[in-house]
């Protein structure tokens, strides 16, 4: 039983607007270019200096000696800053027509009305729309674009910006530090519970360019938040680069859920860095769906610094033709009674490659900690690749650690069972794949679960007929 799965039109995600912009920095990466970006963005001095230092670090660091081949990335060919023809608006009516149309088709304004507490929308390098419910503003919640935060909340930003993810982490974090633009800043004050999600959506329209948004979220003691991040881009022939950075501070007793549906176009190199510092009795949950990109290297990380800190990671990657998705999760247990639960799944088809790469480190002082990891990989044909590369580093005895992984295909017996109930072979396979992805879908708000199922159907659609 073999099924041909064709590449499909990603319809709405692939709509290209004309490459119109107010300002597009020339390609490449030099101190002059960084200075120019800084000038365009009206950076305070400290930020300009920060960028220039990050550039120095970038020049010193090597490319990773592991994982996917990044040799096709030529920074000389990438424009790191593209300013759209729009200022920041708080009403969709003020957003230029073609940009608004794009977000309309992606369903963002509609979702805002029905199921979100606030929305941010970034187009190329700048945020074009930001808005949040009145009652949250009154409770002191801050949700704004990163540039506004640098200007209006300098102390909060200075003490947190790239402290969780230092520029020395790796080459693309250093790059990010030098050229970052856009992104969201969220502060939830002590004890405030934001009952419905905030969402930021990132759209990269301009060809041969990069998106380097910075997301900084501080959930103060006892507060809680669900933040959703969506991303997409139309497909071009040359590579685009995404090197965003997400820094999350989950203070004592706080809760943060960070959900991502990533659907970058298949010419995107997605080299994103996400990290959370989790305090005492706090909990950090990650939900991640990775569908797009040509190459993805994405390993969200939780650092459990406080006693009883908890983290959960639920993620799925779906790699089709020409895609190399090297994703995973990292967790470091640094305190007593901490716990981590990982549930990672991947699907490879049509020559796509999925790699689960991870780290679990339980340090000496993390007595009575628990970690349990489960990975499952599904191979939909014999030309695809699925690798599992987990590192488990246990440095103390009083722990419960377990790791399980499975690789396999859909069993012929299962297909026969479903076909005996009247489902065609393609329907049977699609049903099994959706079921496989269900544990992730059920962690998402309904609209996003629907979007994810649509993406899966879209990916499998070539099978029908």
């Amino acid at each position, binding site marked *: *039983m073999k099924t041909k799965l064709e590449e499909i039109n990603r319809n709405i995600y692939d709509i290209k607007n004309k490459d119109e912009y107010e300002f597009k920095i020339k390609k490449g990466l030099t101190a002059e270019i960084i200075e120019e970006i800084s000038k365009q963005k009206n950076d305070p001095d400290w930020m300009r200096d920060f960028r220039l230092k990050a550039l120095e670090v970038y020049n010193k660091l090597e490319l990773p000696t592991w994982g996917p081949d990044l040799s096709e990335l030529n920074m000389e060919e990438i424009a790191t800053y593209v300013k759209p023809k729009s200022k920041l608006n708080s009403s969709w009516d003020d957003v230029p027509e073609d940009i608004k149309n794009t977000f309309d088709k992606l369903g963002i304004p509609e979702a805002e009305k029905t199921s979100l507490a606030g929305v941010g929308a970034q187009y190329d390098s700048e945020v074009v729309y930001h808005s949040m419910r009145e009652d949250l503003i009154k409770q002191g919640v801050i949700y704004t674009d990163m540039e506004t935060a640098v200007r209006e909340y300098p102390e909060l930003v200075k003490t947190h910006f790239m402290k969780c993810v230092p520029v020395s982490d790796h080459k693309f974090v250093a790059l990010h530090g030098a050229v970052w633009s856009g992104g969201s800043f969220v502060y939830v004050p002590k004890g405030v519970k934001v009952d419905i999600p905030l969402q930021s959506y990132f759209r990269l329209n301009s060809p041969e360019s990069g998106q380097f948004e910075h997301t900084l979220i501080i959930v103060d003691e006892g507060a809680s938040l669900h933040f959703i991040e969506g991303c997409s881009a139309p497909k071009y022939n040359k590579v685009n680069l995404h090197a965003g950075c997400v820094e999350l501070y989950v203070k004592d007793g706080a809760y943060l859920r960070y959900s991502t549906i990533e659907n970058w176009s298949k010419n995107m190199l997605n080299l994103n860095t996400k990290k959370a510092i989790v305090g005492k009795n706090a909990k950090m949950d990650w939900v991640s769906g990775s569908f797009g990109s040509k190459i993805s290297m994405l390993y969200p990380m939780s650092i459990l610094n406080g006693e009883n800190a908890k983290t959960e990671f639920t993620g799925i990657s779906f790699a089709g033709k020409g895609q190399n998705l090297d994703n995973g999760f990292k967790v470091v247990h640094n305190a007593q009674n901490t716990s981590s639960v990982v549930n990672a799944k991947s699907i490879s088809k049509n020559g796509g490659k999925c790699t689960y790469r991870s780290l679990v480190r339980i340090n000496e002082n993390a007595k009575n900690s628990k970690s349990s990891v489960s990975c499952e990989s599904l191979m939909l044909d014999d030309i695809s690749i699925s690798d599992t590369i987990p590192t488990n580093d246990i440095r103390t005895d009083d722990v419960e650690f377990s790791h399980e992984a499975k690789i396999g295909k859909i*069993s*012929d*017996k*299962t297909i*026969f*069972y*479903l*076909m*005996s*109930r*009247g*489902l*065609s*072979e393609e*329907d*049977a396979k699609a*049903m*099994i794949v*959706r*079921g*496989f*992805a*269900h*544990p992730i879908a059920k962690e998402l708000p309904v609209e996003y679960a629907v979007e994810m199922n649509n993406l899966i159907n879209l990916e499998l659609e070539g099978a029908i007929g």
Partner: protein
Amino acid sequence: MSKNMLEIKDLHVNAGEKEILKGINLKINKGEIHVIMGPNGSGKTTTANAILNNPAYTKINGSIEFDGEDITNLKTDEIARKGIFMSFQSPEEIPGVSVTNFLKYAKNKITGEPVKIFAFKEELKKYMEELNMNPKNMERSLNVGFSGGEKKKNEILQMLVLNPKLAILDETDSGLDVDAIKTVSKGIEMFKNENNAVLIITHNTKILHSLKVDYVHVLVDGKIITTGSQELAEIIEENGYSQYK
């Protein structure tokens, strides 16, 4: 319209290189209950799988007609949509797909008509009560973590919901306690009417006690060696298969 529903002629089937069925002939009419009995390894399960054209088995010779149409080489789902249902000896587990969603989807595929969710759920609930099933199972993943008995009841539930013309029950009674066997028999009685038929495959006779069986076929080494009425099953219960070897 002809009473004749299923007709198997001189069916030879291999599993891998090995010949399992060596010329099966079987005719089932509307309104009838047939039983195939036989020792382990005689080809009972192969017969059921061959009717549904499981690609794990190869048909070497012979034909299968259903409602006057040759279905020998149709795909499994096409055969299912013609109205043949098979209850599996070991039903597959499908993580992430709830019983309700699965059955709703399958019902739509079989009938080709949209399924109205509320009425459907009511119907499902009613059947589950009849089969002493926990209604909470409706929202659980199909067969995942079900006990042996729950899985078998779930197969009967699917039979009732999908309402086929011919139901093949492959060892549905095996591994069940007395109460569960009674429930399964009850399910068969609920299903059975003059317009459909049932083929029960079993190696013990407990399930037959409460059912009115029309024909009992004895399958040994890939061939039906004798056919009789319900009494034949009782004789076998008494003496085993040794006399046929």
